[in-house]
């Protein structure tokens, strides 16, 4: 099979759309924002083009685009309602938004993250909504450890994974009631467009699911010691203040967060170990914080409260 030069063609498409939107385009601030096996993102001035994962489903992606268009106060709305085709890859177009600064932890908009998730989770779930793909992504990350081979970090990550209930490993349906969930929340999933406040981006995993999953990654960061109690508190308070349903009436949020936080700790650990080994990079203290958390997870049985939720 001949390799298709995706990047130059995607860049040309982004430029074409940008010039349709703004004929007097400055053509400034253009380039590649991300180039990974599961997605390539390029920018041309105020326009962004994304080539989705090779296995992305056109029907599901179209439904996800429709959800983003319907809720522009929470999700960044796409420029087109259907994905384009570029040599078999699905491509979508978006307005450019400024991301969260990865070099400035103090500027992270924790209130916005909590509020946006609460608003998303309060959105009515349409009947035709796709399934949120969070647990599937976690399962894929753990499956990816096969490529690592015989490495001392693999066993603790796998031991932690087997403490999880079937739904969190994508082996059973998620507990009800379902809410509209982002499915892959992290600080790279927020942007700010001119004249608007923060919005969530990246609809690839958006869908109906257990809303606690979206709180699971910040919860995992907190539990692994990567997020300070104060910032975790700001996030949680904002989520509650905006009426987020995942923690409804939960006196101890960890009764609800334990399983998603375990799953996302395992997913993050699996990803970072896989990548470090592939890059030939020794594990650093941040990797070890995640692997140590996996060891502790394996030593403590998961809360069973969530499994019995009807």
């Amino acid at each position, binding site marked *: 099979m001949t390799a298709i030069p995706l990047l130059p063609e995607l860049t040309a498409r982004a430029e074409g759309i940008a010039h349709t939107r703004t004929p007097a385009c400055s053509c400034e601030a253009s380039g590649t924002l991300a180039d990974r096996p599961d997605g390539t993102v390029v920018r041309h001035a105020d326009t962004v083009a994304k080539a989705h994962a090779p296995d992305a489903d056109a029907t599901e992606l179209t439904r996800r685009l429709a959800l983003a268009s319907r809720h522009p106060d929470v999700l960044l709305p796409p420029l087109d309602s259907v994905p384009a085709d570029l040599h078999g890859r699905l491509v979508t177009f978006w307005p450019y938004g400024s991301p969260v600064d990865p070099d400035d932890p103090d500027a992270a908009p924790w209130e916005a993250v909590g509020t946006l998730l609460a608003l998303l989770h309060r959105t009515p779930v349409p009947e035709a909504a796709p399934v949120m793909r969070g647990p599937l992504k976690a399962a894929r990350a753990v499956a990816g450890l096969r490529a690592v081979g015989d490495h001392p970090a693999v066993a603790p990550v796998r031991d932690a994974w087997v403490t999880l209930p079937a739904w969190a490993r994508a082996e059973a349906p998620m507990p009800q009631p379902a809410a509209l969930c982002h499915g892959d929340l992290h600080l790279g999933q927020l942007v700010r467009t001119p004249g608007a406040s923060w919005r969530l981006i990246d609809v690839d995993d958006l869908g109906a699911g257990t809303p606690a999953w979206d709180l699971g990654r910040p919860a995992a960061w*907190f539990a692994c010691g990567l997020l300070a109690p104060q910032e975790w508190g700001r996030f949680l308070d904002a989520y509650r203040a905006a009426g987020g349903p995942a923690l409804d009436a939960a006196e101890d949020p960890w009764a609800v967060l334990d399983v998603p936080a375990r799953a996302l700790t395992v997913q993050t650990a699996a990803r970072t170990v896989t990548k470090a080994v592939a890059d030939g990079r020794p594990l650093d203290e941040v990797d070890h*914080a995640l692997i140590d958390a996996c060891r502790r997870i394996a030593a403590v049985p998961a809360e069973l409260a969530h499994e019995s939720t009807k």
Partner: protein
Amino acid sequence: MQCPKCRAPMHTYNRNGVQIEQCSGCRGIFLDYGELESLTRLESQWSQQAAPPPPAAPQAYPAAPQPAWGAPHGGHHGGHHYGHHRNKGFGRMLFSS
């Protein structure tokens, strides 16, 4: 010996080495000289043995709840740990799937 109050006969009992006269009628008790002090001494020995543990040291700040498997956070358990992770981990771990 007769009870000075109701005149009923009094019986002698031995309680932990202390002689006690108790009236068989009104159940009143007569103590000889020094016997009250002996009882007081015995009582204080007993309460020392059964003393409750000293109160737990107060927490430096109210800890945010976290799961049983959570990492130690700030304050009393290795606070430097966290700040280190934050600076190194923020850009890498908080911005990726």
